[in-house]
């Protein structure tokens, strides 16, 4: 289990996260939702070791994760994608994956084979030798997920994987995430604004607003919650 307890993060005077606790089980799909600036990405940064919390702690399988060791956490299976995707533009799509496979201990030849398998799995086989900056937006996002899968995640943290996708693509993404959970046996945390996708995909939701937890539970419970309705749907009628 990946668990964050009583996390507080400040940027100067701004409290981006205040006293938030959350846990991600292996094999569950957890939705992390909230309006813009709620602190969702900051929370993922904390969980993945990119952001040192000012208070609180993160534990992986009961053990505290050290400060600012994002690379080590990634190698132990806590892997995240980026809201801005951040592919390696000058490397080929295959090499984008091979970097992570190398971190997981595979030699170059084995990494090449495994990258081909993963790209095939993601329906990106034809793109393997293209440079990372020559893809369509949807493809780019999928390569970002494939690159995370290269690290054999136990916990996969997806920061707005459906941003910029059309309705059809977003639905396909939902299916893909379920398939990944089944095939990789990993817990998935998804940050997502599209409520339809969230409702269909997530077994549990955690709602942030202005850095605080305002609701958590099953999607049905959360949507009935008055705090959620006023803070979230009120702020963002959609």
């Amino acid at each position, binding site marked *: 289990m990946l668990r964050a307890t009583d996390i507080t993060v400040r940027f100067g005077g701004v409290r981006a996260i205040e006293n938030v606790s959350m846990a991600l089980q292996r094999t569950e799909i957890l939705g992390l939702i909230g309006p813009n600036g709620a602190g969702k990405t900051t929370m993922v940064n904390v969980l*993945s070791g*990119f952001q040192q919390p000012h208070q609180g702690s993160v534990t992986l399988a009961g053990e505290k994760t050290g400060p600012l060791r*994002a*690379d*080590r956490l*990634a*190698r132990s299976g806590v*892997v*995240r*994608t*980026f809201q801005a995707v*951040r*592919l*390696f*533009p*000058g*490397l*080929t799509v295959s*090499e*984008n994956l*091979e*970097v*992570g496979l*190398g*971190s*997981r201990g*595979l*030699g*170059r030849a084995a*990494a090449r084979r495994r990258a081909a398998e993963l790209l095939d799995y993601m329906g990106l086989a034809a793109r393997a*030798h*293209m*440079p*990372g*900056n*020559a893809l369509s937006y949807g493809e780019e996002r999928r390569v970002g997920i494939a*690159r*995370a899968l*290269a*690290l054999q995640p136990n916990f996969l943290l997806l920061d707005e994987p459906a941003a910029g996708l059309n309705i059809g693509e977003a639905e396909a993404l939902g299916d893909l995430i379920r398939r990944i959970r089944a095939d990789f046996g990993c817990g998935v945390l998804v940050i997502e604004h599209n409520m339809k996708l969230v409702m269909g995909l997530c077994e549990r939701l955690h709602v942030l607003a202005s850095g605080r937890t305002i609701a958590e539970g099953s999607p049905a419970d959360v949507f009935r919650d008055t705090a959620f309705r006023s803070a979230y749907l009120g702020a963002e009628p959609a």
Partner: protein
Amino acid sequence: MAASISDRIGWRPAARDGLRRLVPLAALVGIVLTIVLLAGMGDIVLQRRVIFCLIHVVAVVGLYIFMGNSGVMNFSSAGFMAVGAYTSALLTMAPGMKSTFLPDLPAWLAAAHLSPLWGALAGGVMAGLMALVIGIPIMRLSGIGAAIATLSLMFICYIVLGNWTALTGGQQSLMGLPSYVGLWTAGLTAMVAIAVAFVYQETRGALALRGSREDEVAARGSGVRIVRERLAAFVVSGFVTGIAGVLYGHFLGTLRVESFYLDLTFLLVTMLVVGGMRSLAGAVIGAIGISILTELLRLVEVGFVLPGTSWSIATPPGLGDVALAAAMLLIILFRPQGLTGGHEIELPRSKTSTSGLATTSGNTGTANV
């Protein structure tokens, strides 16, 4: 359908792929070999020029190993060359020579008399050790911080060597190095340096480093230990650059600390940037290209008589340096990825056309060489 047949015979595509991956190495070794063979037919003056060029190839390849793969600026090449050159000089000079030029050497060093090969290796190892020791604190720097730190390292080498009179003769020239470096020594060393750089860049550590070059944050997200990978590259780079210094000393037979200063640093960085710092081909082609350019300019600067006329053409002194800076500026402005655009020399990837050499878009997808 040709593809499906070769797919069924499992080993064939793999073997062909393995060979294909060696093409960038073979092409560059071939270029160096051709240069050596052609120069062998020329006169002694030409050969000396070519040897200089080959030594620069070694130095720029050394620089590339770190700077090209990591994307981190490095202005310390001249310092590593100096350390390699003086180490090898002190270990290989005849004791009689040393007692003349360096009377204050410690006794064990005054007596040391290694063979050229061991001296050269010691020079490379010394430079590699310096990279290891200095690299541990500075490898977390990138951008302007790394530029300043490596430039400072170069200044420190210059000042220490220039004032450590007992060891280097200080501001005076150190003479009497065995000058064993000829065309083939320089050529073979260049080929070995290219092979070392190639083998290194095929490791997973080097790929991880290139990932960090493209995006440090994403590389950490992919589990890359950035500082460690940079340090490994810096040490290999230091070794190869040190060897370039060894060649330099044992080619000229004399050493001056002044030779390892800003001019050389700027020359090496220019060679790499003009060639294209993101590929080994860029390092080699940049070193050769700038060498040819400076030779041509030297001819013009000295002045020559236009054939068939009595007009002599001579340009103002300093033109060479200006042209070097101009070449750098033009490349940075109009072709920031360098002449090679960051590509290696490869066979075209498509299955139908298998003849001829071309550069494929391995990197930025822009135009070819």
